[in-house]
């Protein structure tokens, strides 16, 4: 430190110095420049807004049946997207059904992320026998194909939303635990963790203060990629007659109910599945975009 640098006139400051940008603002900038990610985000926002607010703003009745209006094609006056096999308004049912379908996509991933991250961080940080114990149990659940495990558990428990949510959560805990464990193991070997321990920080403090902030990113990115899988499997469970029960509108259940109608009204029959497809592709495109925006090497 010299007096000279301190007394440097303001005008002579090197112009090349940019305001320091953080990692996350860089990520945000790269995301904003990615048209595909932005379009997908916009579509998802529209669907989310429609699903949440449309039933509050417009009189939509997803339960009103009518024998004379069955399977009307999309565009029928009063029924923008036609009617289903019992003459119920498809648009109203798709909007109401989206609430449950999206919820059954998000909720299991959210709960599984909390449980899986906790287990994985404990296993990764503690190491040794604790790691062995937790990870070998996860290996057992990993030994089932995910759809099979979900069907097996909710099949044994019987139909019902809660049973479906429980089965899905159980399916997603092992993969998230694995990711959390491997990231935590890597972080734990870093010098700054040793430094923190040398200063006398407790294990709790190291985990909450140092480890968590470093492992949260990879875990969340991984979990976000699971949301589309969760929506597809959740609707799949309802499609099989597990999960949601009629007459509650839900995309998978609607798709299953309309299966007999494919010969008469194919467009109506594929609509609920098209919704699942759109939501899932947008989520996948978005998580791809976020992943590459977070990848500094790219």
């Amino acid at each position, binding site marked *: 430190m010299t007096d000279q640098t301190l007394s440097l006139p303001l005008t002579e400051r090197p112009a090349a110095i940019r305001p320091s940008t953080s990692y996350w603002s860089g990520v945000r900038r790269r995301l904003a420049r990615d048209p595909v990610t932005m379009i997908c985000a916009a579509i998802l926002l529209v669907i989310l807004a429609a699903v949440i607010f449309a039933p509050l703003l417009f009189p939509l009745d997803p339960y009103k049946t009518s024998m004379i209006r069955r399977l009307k094609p999309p565009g029928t006056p009063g029924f923008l997207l036609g009617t289903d096999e019992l003459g119920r308004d498809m648009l109203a049912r798709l909007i109401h059904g989206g609430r449950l379908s999206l919820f059954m996509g998000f909720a299991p991933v959210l709960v599984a992320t909390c449980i899986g991250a906790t287990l994985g961080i404990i296993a990764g940080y503690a190491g040794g026998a604790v790691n062995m114990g937790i990870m*070998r*149990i996860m*290996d*057992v*659940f990993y*030994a*089932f*194909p*995910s*759809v*099979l*495990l979900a*069907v*097996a*558990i909710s*099949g*044994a*428990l*019987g139909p019902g939303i809660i049973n479906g949510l429980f089965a899905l959560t159980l399916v997603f805990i092992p993969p998230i635990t694995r990711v959390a464990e491997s990231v935590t193991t890597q972080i734990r070997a870093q010098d700054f963790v040793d430094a923190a321990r040398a200063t006398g920080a407790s294990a709790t403090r190291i985990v909450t203060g140092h480890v968590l902030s470093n492992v949260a990113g990879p875990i969340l990115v991984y979990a976000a990629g699971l949301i*589309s899988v969760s929506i*597809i499997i959740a*609707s*799949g469970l309802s*499609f*099989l*007659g*597990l999960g949601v029960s009629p007459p509650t509108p839900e995309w998978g259940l609607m*798709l299953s109910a309309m*299966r007999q109608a*494919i*010969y008469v009204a*194919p467009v109506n*029959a*594929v609509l609920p*599945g*098209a919704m*699942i*497809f759109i939501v*899932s*592709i947008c*989520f*996948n*495109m978005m998580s*791809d975009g976020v992943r590459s925006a977070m990848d500094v090497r790219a």
Partner: protein
Amino acid sequence: MIFYVIRRILYVIPIAIGVTIVCFMLIHLAPGDPPDAVLPDNAPPEMVEEVRAAYGFDKPLPVQYAYWLSRVVTGDFGRSIMTQRSVASEVFPAVLNSLTIAAAAIVLALFVGVLFGALSGYRSGTLTDRAITFVATTGISVPHYWLAMVLIIVFAVNMRILPATGMGPGGSSGFAFNLENLRYMVLPAIALAVGPAAIIARSVRGTVSEIRKQDFIQTLYAKGLGPTRVFLHVAKNAAPTLLAIIGLQTAHLLGGSILVETVFSWPGAGFLLHSAIFSRDLPILQGAVLVLAMFFVATNLVVDVLQTFFDPRLRRG
């Protein structure tokens, strides 16, 4: 190598035991008294007591598990509630049918996935690459049970060129290798293959473009090798990763086939599971899940061993 194989097999045993424990618990997960779960609703009380004694439902759980396991290893999975036939006689033919369609699907997925994945990896960063990546992401995102319905609508209902459901003409449920029966396999195979093909294409793309960036590829070109010879080197280096993905996808196909088989009324394990769920036939559910999961474990073991065969570096891990 032989020691490694033995070690892998020893490592799989606790997992296999864990899988049997989970399958065993499925009956106890079901609401109500366990004998009710394995008997028809109208079973007479003396039959309930008989089953309770025979299955050991009055004993503590670990003892029950030992009873159950000792029967399962001899191939006795209990009796179906629906048909009163033994679970094994229902499950094994169904699993065979599932394997038939899964095999067709994995061959299709491999061909398409490797071809487009390699093309994409070689054209990394170009429009071709972006187009293939986009299609692959679409393939991963599509709900396969919905795709199955769309395929039926397009090819069976509108164009009438392929049969909509079933495994063969006249509702036959056995497999025969002739043109008429093969036509019934086309749509289910496509519906099942799309997801794995997309995943294979994505990982082949990643692996190939990663390998092509490495120094030894430059050396090979500098040495004067033509593109074909260099491709052989790329292929050899990509093999272990590819093998892992293929193994995982093959195994997942069996699980994923539940929904597709339901849509196509394909008489496989998935279709059986579906009807078992509807009639609350828990012995069938348990048996089918156990057989499929064991198959999954075995596939993973074979893949692990093959992988180290191709890439000896992995053996140290």
